[in-house]
């Protein structure tokens, strides 16, 4: 399984990378533009990401915009919603409007920092993502 962590903060990136490593191959994007480029490259190589952990407040292009773009690209490519990449927002932002916007634009889950291993695993399980056999 391919996973993309989109984070502009080094500590958060490292933590997510370590927590998600047992689940598959973890790639990193440090801003929204890199994230979109990685997403599109994976799609063109027919090796799409199964999961994206997406920060919201980032320079240039924020996570909400990246989320909208990805869903737009999937729709344009004829990818059914149920077959699209699972997206978990990982952020400090917890105001109701931002959370509502993220779900309106079809994120699957919203985790508020600080990151918690138990909550992350619980969320992954809920999304049907489990550890590969032997991990």
């Amino acid at each position, binding site marked *: 399984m391919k996973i993309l962590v989109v984070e502009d903060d080094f*500590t958060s990136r490292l*933590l997510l990378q370590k*927590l998600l490593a047992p689940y598959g191959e973890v790639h990193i994007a440090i801003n929204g533009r890199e994230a979109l480029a990685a997403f599109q490259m994976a799609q063109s190589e027919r090796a799409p990401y199964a999961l994206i952990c997406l920060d919201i*407040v*980032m320079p240039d292009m924020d996570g909400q915009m990246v989320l909208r773009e990805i869903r737009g690209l999937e729709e344009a490519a004829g990818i059914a919603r149920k077959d699209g990449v699972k997206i978990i927002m990982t952020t400090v932002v917890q105001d109701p409007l931002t959370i509502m916007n993220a779900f309106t634009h079809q994120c699957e889950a919203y985790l508020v*920092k*600080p990151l918690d291993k138990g909550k992350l695993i619980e969320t992954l399980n809920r999304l049907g993502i489990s550890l590969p056999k032997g991990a």
Partner: protein
Amino acid sequence: MTFNVQVGLTPLAPKGCSMPFPDDTAMAPDVDIFDEMDLLRRLADDRVLAQEVLIAFAGDVRARLVEIETAVAKRDLAAVRRLAHTLRGSASNVSADALVAMARLVEKSIELGDWKYVGELVLELKAGADRFEAVLRDRGWLPEGEEGAP
């Protein structure tokens, strides 16, 4: 170890600030500089991972503070807001509660446009980062001479 943000660092209301100060900047008087138990609980007692992220944070935080200082010097409100927000997320991940509170105060204060006060807060943030690192060393999380590497 607790850290009294209100008394030990900067008074919540900026001196000479005539603008109303947002009520939600009020915080509990005692905030841990490092809530070790919280970090270990969130990482399911994985001490190796905890140390890894602490070393990473300690090695990265000064560069982030320099970025904030530069943004303050340029009076770049959007950049200060974003950088303080990012620092808050980063500090929360390592349970650096006093730094989280101070970064939040910067985020709130910037909205009032009191650049002098924000500048003072950034100095307090730097002192808080030094204190955090000292606590990590005291507790053996950051070996003497160890340099965190981003």
